[in-house]
């Protein structure tokens, strides 16, 4: 960045400064012998131009909206348009969740984000034996198109963008969304939104898998192909580091494992005959926003640059949009404490700020009571207001990538990119993400990091306010959100009624047709859409696919 002579002068001056500092340090030692980021990267006392000596502005940073997109994917960033404020929400039945969505949109939220209950995420109907106790608990229960129609009743799908946290059965829920839109008279080409559709991190971190990895990858490439032809504005995947981080990874591992999964999806789609620029522009990402404020900002910048380089250099992408890492961020649920819950509002605010300074395209801010239960409406409102405060009052949105050029931020951005690249090389040596997961490599790395983090808290090396320092005997809030225990019974009754009233021949025929397609090589999206429209249930559709593809059997490693 600087010429040799200038650097030499800085080096000499710094050395002299250190000499002058030395006696003072003896008298007033620093608080610790060494400092590190929350991910264990050593942090020096001071960063100077020496630490960015190799940085080439034009090649490594460039301009916003241009390769390698370190500074931003959009040329004007938040000066043009603010991020999408998108709170993840869903509970109980479609009716109740529909009311929460209308409340959130009325409060100024700009996009929807659907949380499904666990039976829906794992492809079981509400009346399945394994659904007992789980219906409507962590999200909304969706059994058929009927529920989906209720979920979006009165919400114009041409105007909102909708993100759906759905992975193994993503194809089915996307098909239901398309069918609801059709009934509203909205064309597929006008739909905007995202399906998570990222199965690889389910095996390593989140747990809602159904089928084994290889057929899962086939379904995902079918979705890529379908979306690129029919729903060009839809993000066909959200490659997620969020859950990898929640499972305990470091920031570097979050970037590395997420992008390694991204590489696996791109390769699978190319192997299936798709052109990289056909689906590349619709890949999106999802990151965590953790406690280490500056490390997180550097992480987003490093991820953007690294993905651009991977898409251009490794996969030969030509369309700039294929190289742009666009991402959603959620603040780190795992950092919230059950002790002194209002402190979580402050944690979330810092985390949200780092996501904004890192250039996120959309954001979910966690609610203060999430270490205790699903959030109340009041807690969700404060969380949303936190984003609105950052957007409207703090001024950080007025210029693009405001922390660029900080010696520390640039040095840390380089470091995270280098260390993530080393991990990706290691995963390549193992044969890619799928074998690395099958061999347990990624799971083991994450577990070790999680255990180390917990030990650091217990030893006091890591401070958590309210937990291991500044504790009080605070009263826990009692106004937690409670699920109506009748949700399951209502859902089961609705399902029974549906099975009686639908044209059962049409549903059976559509399921048979799906089975035949799944056994062959054709795209499964079309027969899934037909089955959904014939009111076949989610469980019935997934059972057909289970019959063809089998189920994933993990090996539990501790």
């Amino acid at each position: 960045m600087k010429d040799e002579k200038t650097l030499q002068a800085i080096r000499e001056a710094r050395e002299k400064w250190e000499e002058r500092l030395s006696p003072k340090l003896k008298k007033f030692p620093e608080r610790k012998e060494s400092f590190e980021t929350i991910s264990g990267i050593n942090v020096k006392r001071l960063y100077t131009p020496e630490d960015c000596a190799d940085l080439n502005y034009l090649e490594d940073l460039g301009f916003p909206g241009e390769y390698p997109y370190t500074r931003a994917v959009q040329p004007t960033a938040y000066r043009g348009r603010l991020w999408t404020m998108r709170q993840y929400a869903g509970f109980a039945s479609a009716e109740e969740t529909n009311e929460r969505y209308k409340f959130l949109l009325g409060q100024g939220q700009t996009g929807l984000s659907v949380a499904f209950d666990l039976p829906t995420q794992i492809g079981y109907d509400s009346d399945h034996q394994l659904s007992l106790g789980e219906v409507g608990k962590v999200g909304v229960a969706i059994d058929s198109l009927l529920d989906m129609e209720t979920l979006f009743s009165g919400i114009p799908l041409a105007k909102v963008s909708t993100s759906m946290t759905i992975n193994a059965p993503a194809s089915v829920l996307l098909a239901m969304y398309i069918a609801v839109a059709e009934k509203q008279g909205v064309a597929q080409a006008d739909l905007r939104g995202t399906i998570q559709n990222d199965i690889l991190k389910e095996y390593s971190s989140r747990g809602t898998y159904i089928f084994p990895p290889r057929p899962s990858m086939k379904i995902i490439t079918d979705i890529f192909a379908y979306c690129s032809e029919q729903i060009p504005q839809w993000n066909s995947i959200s490659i997620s580091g969020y859950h990898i981080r929640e499972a305990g990874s470091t920031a570097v591992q979050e970037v590395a494992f997420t992008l390694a999964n991204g590489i696996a999806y791109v390769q699978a789609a190319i192997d299936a005959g798709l052109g990289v620029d056909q689906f590349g522009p619709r890949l999106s990402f999802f990151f965590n926003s953790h406690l280490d404020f500056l490390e997180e900002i550097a992480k987003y910048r490093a991820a953007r640059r690294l993905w651009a380089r991977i898409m251009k250099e490794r996969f030969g992408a030509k369309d700039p949009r294929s190289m742009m890492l666009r991402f959603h961020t959620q603040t780190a649920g795992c950092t919230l404490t059950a002790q002194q819950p209002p402190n979580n509002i402050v944690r979330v605010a810092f985390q949200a700020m780092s996501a904004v300074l890192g250039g996120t395209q959309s954001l979910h801010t966690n609610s203060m009571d999430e270490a205790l239960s699903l959030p109340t409406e009041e807690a969700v409102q404060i969380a949303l207001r936190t984003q609105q405060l950052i957007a409207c009052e703090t001024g950080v949105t007025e210029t693009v990538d405001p922390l660029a050029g900080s010696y520390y931020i640039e040095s840390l951005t380089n470091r995270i990119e280098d260390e993530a690249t080393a991990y990706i090389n290691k995963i390549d040596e193992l044969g890619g993400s799928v074998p690395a997961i099958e061999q347990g490599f990624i799971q083991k790395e994450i577990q070790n990091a999680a255990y180390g983090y917990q030990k650091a808290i217990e030893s006091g090396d890591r401070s958590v306010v309210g937990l291991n320092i500044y504790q009080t005997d605070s009263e826990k809030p009692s106004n937690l959100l409670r699920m109506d225990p009748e949700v399951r019974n209502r859902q089961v009754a609705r399902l029974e009624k549906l099975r009686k009233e639908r044209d059962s021949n049409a549903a059976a025929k559509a399921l048979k047709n799906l089975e035949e397609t799944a056994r062959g090589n054709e795209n499964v999206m079309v027969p899934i859409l037909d089955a959904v429209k014939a009111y076949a249930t989610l469980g019935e559709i997934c059972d057909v696919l289970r019959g063809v593809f089998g189920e994933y059997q993990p090996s539990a490693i501790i």
Partner: protein
Amino acid sequence: MSERKIRVLTAKPGLDGHDRGVKVISAALRDAGMEVIYTGLRQTPEQIATTALQEDVDVIGLSILSGAHDYLFPRIMELLDEKGMKDVIVLGGGIIPEEDIPGLLSKGIDRVFGPGTYTSEIVQYIQSRVKGS
């Protein structure tokens, strides 16, 4: 003859995939010298009770974050009772609202550990409970 190691079954009942906590606790119990058997995800109450019997465990640690504890924990206690395993110590953990805890204790759950609990506290608790009983 060396002293028998404390045997612990750690389990994830229900469909929830959050296994960071259960894995960290399993590692800590193992490092404290206990024999730990982890079931993996998505275990039915029947599977958990059967494994506990087969493995002849002293303690079962149930981890759940989805809110399904209200149905699944009592169901597991019923099955343990049916199998005559009244002396096994059953602990719960995860996201479990305080007001649900008395109900779970009345069904025979020995103790519920909430978010933020130190693994060292759980280790000590298990050691003193197993020795005491």
